[in-house]
């Protein structure tokens, strides 16, 4: 209630000079569901298709793709605009991967309706040919912006950025991955060239903003934070501009809810990560306040 009053006042102040009440009504009436977006996300699911067993020492009975599917379906029935994302390390962790090479993971993610994913270091574990082979069964794109795959079998199988329209909102998504050297055997990433994630993130985010994206999301497999100087999502958030949300992975960090950082421009950036193994599903609800004239895209936490 309080917020509605605030919105009404601010609309009058910023746009009330020349406009008739007719034109304004869209801003202060009941909020248009087309201006709402629900982002659901996972990371580091690591081939965990079945729930953990009931005798598991840490996560008894948790996770499982079938339950995740039910949760997502329920949210889809309640919300008009849902975006489903994954931040990498889809492969490796259960015999499903050893035996079937990631095919089942891709089939299931397609059925769940994933919109976009990025690659984690373990998504190279089947080799690059193995990734391409499994990816045939995916009906969603992978965005990888800081791996240069030219001269590798993956070339042409990933995208630099992806723009998706949901309701009234234009969403720009790109992906950054972790340095593979030392994490992945050399033979498995071959001639993949690693590009500086901060530099690339700044470039891609600016490009997406210029293309008119209202919301800019970075799918990251860099890791949430480190004691060392290593680039993490927190560092990425602080040293870049134009990114609104970082969906992270790699460090298997369980966050209760999205955390906030201040970017190079003094604006708020959100970071979220949901541990690993599909134990949790992340949810972020945005409402988009539209205005005539100004396009600030400023993120506000309420």
């Amino acid at each position: 209630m309080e917020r509605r009053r605030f919105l009404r006042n601010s609309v009058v102040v910023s746009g009330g000079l020349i406009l008739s009440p007719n034109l304004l009504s869209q801003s202060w009436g009941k909020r248009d569901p087309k201006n709402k977006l629900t982002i659901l996300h996972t990371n580091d699911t690591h081939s965990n298709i079945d729930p953990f067993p009931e005798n598991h020492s840490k996560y008894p009975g948790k996770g499982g793709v079938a339950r995740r599917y039910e949760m997502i379906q329920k949210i889809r029935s309640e919300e008009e605009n849902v975006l489903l994302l994954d931040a990498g390390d889809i492969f490796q962790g259960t015999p499903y991967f050893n035996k079937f090479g990631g095919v089942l993971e891709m089939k299931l993610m397609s059925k769940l309706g994933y919109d976009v994913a990025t690659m984690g270091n373990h998504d190279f574990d089947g080799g690059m040919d193995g990734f391409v082979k499994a990816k045939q069964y995916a009906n969603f794109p992978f965005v990888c912006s800081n791996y240069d795959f030219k001269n590798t079998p993956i070339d042409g199988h990933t995208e630099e950025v992806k723009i998706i329209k949901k309701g009234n909102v234009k969403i720009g998504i790109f992906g950054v991955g972790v340095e593979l050297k030392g994490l992945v055997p050399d033979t498995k990433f071959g001639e993949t060239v690693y590009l500086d994630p901060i530099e690339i993130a700044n470039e891609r985010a600016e490009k997406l903003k210029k293309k008119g994206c209202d919301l800019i999301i970075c799918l990251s497999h860099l890791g949430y934070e480190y004691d060392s100087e290593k680039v993490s999502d927190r560092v990425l958030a602080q040293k870049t501009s134009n990114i609104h949300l970082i969906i992270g992975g790699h460090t298997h960090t369980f966050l209760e809810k999205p955390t906030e950082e201040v970017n190079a421009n003094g604006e708020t950036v959100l970071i979220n990560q949901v541990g690993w193994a599909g134990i949790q599903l992340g949810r972020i609800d945005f409402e988009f306040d539209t205005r005539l004239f100004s396009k600030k895209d400023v993120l506000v936490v309420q």
Partner: protein
Amino acid sequence: MIKHIILIAVGAGLLACSSVDKIILNSSSSANVDVVNHDGEANTIDSIVAPYKEELNAEMNAVIAYAERPFERGRPGGSLNNWAADALLSSQIGKAKLSGPVFSLLNVGGLRNSINEGDVTLGDMFKLMPFDNEVVWVEMPVESLEDIAAYLTASGGEPISGAELKNGKLMVDGVNEDTKTVWILTSNYLMNGGDNMNFFQQKMSVTHTDELLRDAFVRVAKEQKLLLWSDEIRIHI
């Protein structure tokens, strides 16, 4: 009259320009939620998984050993660290040509799942060691022990067997002042610099076993029947 038309045109133009000014996070509904097994009705996902699961289960549900208590990984040490490093060492000891001081070294990050109390299945071993890494013997100059000690101190501890880190020094069973080389049993992944174990660049020779680390674990688990549990601290930092 003309003025009026211009105003309408401007108004229509502005409407088209309506764009996002604020992105408001709804903090009350934005939360990370547990995916819980409700034991609900089978759904379409279950039916996609079923044929794959059937094929796997036939293979993976075979019980190979028993655990009287859970094995957990940890730093500086843990019961799982000890079991894995001991299993690696005992899987190779007694093999011809492996002479002189020898110890095993793995990485905490590579032990991908705990071993739960109860029956231990082949599938549990796959979860513990999903990677298809090979067991290798790496012959190292005795001087490299200093670098390994520094690595273990910096990382906070990794699974070792046949050695102990004390006062910043790595004490390997059987090493004396005449010792020139030491054998390390590890995986090809770590030998090739995985987890930044760059000290392996000093290696003098490598013997490939053509046995997967997971297969070595399975072999030892079957021999032990009751998995040997120990929380002995081997890394003192």
